[in-house]
């Protein structure tokens, strides 16, 4: 029982972060059909913002907010400067651009900061633990669950109740028709990128909190996670992406605990083979989500 509770909490905690990562990727994909390879770099940007702010006397919470906002700003800027000019040209051009933007940002971190890991400030509460059902549980994991669930609820209210949210959902379904009703294309796309970056920034705070440091290559794992989760969720559905994130987290945790050592080494190969199989045989995703 204790083991089960432990797995449940770590699964939910990891799943909450995965869900947010997936959501951030799919909200842009839904509208532009762009698989944004630079998505992981928004997490990196938040990390370096935290690092640069660490000598300042600001309270941690303020630093965290600034970091998340910086990720959103970077996401907005990449759209404005790099993606918008190639948007009309082709999907392929946009995809290659996102790959180039990813390389650009990573190397900017190498160039202007350092190739070595940098320590990011974490609040005291991140290293505290509580006992739940006889297990020592990091408070950070509980916080990740609470914050993510609150965000998911807030996000869903935004999508259902505000005109911008409705326009975002409509644009993901029929972009041109949405424009014909007077919703500006640039507004919807910018909004999607800002939300995407903000989600990445918030994920970054908890994701970096695990190791307490940031490197130029930190974005790759979250990017892969977001890819897999969105594929599980069917690529086009926001709720599917969220469910996909939780599914991937639990699968990962089960692999970690159950797979024998020899096979465990090949877990990435396993997971990505499954991704290929899903795209081939169940492109609508493993979980049925809507909206």
């Amino acid at each position: 029982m204790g083991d089960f509770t432990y797995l449940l909490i770590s699964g939910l905690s990891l799943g909450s972060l995965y869900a947010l990562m997936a959501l951030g990727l799919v909200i842009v994909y839904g509208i532009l059909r762009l698989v944004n390879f630079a998505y992981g770099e928004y997490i990196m940007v938040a990390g370096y913002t935290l690092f640069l702010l660490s000598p300042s006397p600001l309270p941690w919470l303020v630093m965290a907010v600034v970091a998340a906002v910086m990720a959103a700003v970077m996401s907005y800027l990449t759209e404005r400067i790099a993606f918008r000019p190639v948007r009309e040209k082709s999907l392929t051009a946009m995809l290659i651009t996102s790959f180039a933007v990813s390389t650009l940002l990573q190397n900017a971190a190498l160039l202007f900061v350092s190739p070595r890991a940098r320590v990011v400030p974490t609040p005291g509460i991140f290293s505290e633990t509580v006992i739940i059902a006889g297990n020592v549980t990091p408070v950070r994991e509980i916080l990740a669950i609470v914050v993510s669930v609150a965000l998911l609820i807030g996000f869903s209210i935004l999508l259902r109740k505000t005109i911008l949210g409705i326009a975002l959902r409509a644009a993901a379904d029929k972009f041109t028709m949405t424009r014909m009703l007077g919703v500006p294309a640039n507004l919807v796309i910018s909004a999607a990128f800002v939300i995407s970056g903000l989600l990445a920034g918030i994920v970054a705070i908890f994701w970096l909190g695990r190791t307490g440091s940031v490197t130029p290559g930190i974005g790759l794992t979250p990017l892969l996670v977001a890819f897999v989760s969105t594929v599980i969720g069917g690529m086009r559905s926001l709720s599917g992406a969220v469910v996909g994130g939780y599914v991937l987290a639990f699968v990962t945790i089960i692999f970690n605990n159950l797979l024998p050592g020899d096979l465990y080494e090949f877990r990435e190969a396993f997971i990505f083979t499954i991704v290929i199989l899903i795209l081939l045989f169940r492109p609508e995703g493993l979980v049925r989500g809507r909206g």
Partner: protein
Amino acid sequence: MREILGRAPYLNTVLTLLVPLVLIAAATDAFGGTVQQRIVTTMFINMILVLGLQVYMGNSGIVSFAHIGFMGIGAYASAVLSMPPDLKAMTLRDLYDVLQPIDLPFWLAVTVGAGVAGVVAAIISYPLMRLSDAAAIITSFALLVVINDVLVHWSEVTNGPRTLFGVERFTYLWTSAGVAFAGLLFAAWFRESRVGLQLRASRDDRVAAQSCGVNMVFVRWVAFVLMCIYAAIAGALWAHFITSFQPGHFYLEEVFLILAMLVIGGPVSVSGAVIGTILVTLAFEGFRALEGYLNTNQVFGTQVFGLTEFLLALAMIGILIFRPAGVMRGRELRIGRRHRGGRGMPATKERAAD
């Protein structure tokens, strides 16, 4: 001569491109020092990779990441097959016993390595070829991740994530140049071949091509397997040039470099692949020299990292925005009559894969 060229315009393109390429190779051979030899040899190896990517991506309009994985397969297969048994005992401790005594000559090892990669690609990729757009991109990316993970953890063949030492050097300037020339000839021929034309038709208008009886899955598959064979040959040559390497080399950084070369040159034409390789090599070495200068003279007081890739990414974004069909704009270089595009057709602009 003129008559042959008139009937096969791709030969004109090949000859036009070969002149400067042979000159580069000969000049490097005659006057270049070790550094120049290294740069030009690497350039020709990269050119093989870029030409392979052009065969698939240029003609089908679909981006691929997977070929760099097959470069790894070619590198490891040829390295393991050609390493003397006593060396293997030292560097590849976990190697399968069956592979232990095999000691193939260099060219045979390259051929077998390319064959292994080709067979693997042929089997894996066929079902993937019906996917387009984002699904095609993500599967090729996933394939790269899978191959990389296998290379990293299959210690019984690859020595795991550690560096594989002791590969013998066989690749020299003219080796890589010669193979690149052959690859150029084949890529130019393929572009004008029946399958190549069908593939380009399916890139420009998938529905129309299929209604004309083009088997899109089949023609894509042929090009994909060819690309993987190109990549495997390049990997094998590179392995026998660099002599020690690790799986991490066959991953996203290499993908980016090769993609940058093709995109900057212009993916639709073979000339674009060649010109892009040359331009990016020049830029890359220029930036690297600058980075080296800044570091040795301590211009900024600290070590500078990533400047080369940073500037290259910037150049690539600039090309995508301001000259999306690349430097060559989809044209082939030709001497004499100003042909544009293939077979007197107007220049095929790069079009969306959607």
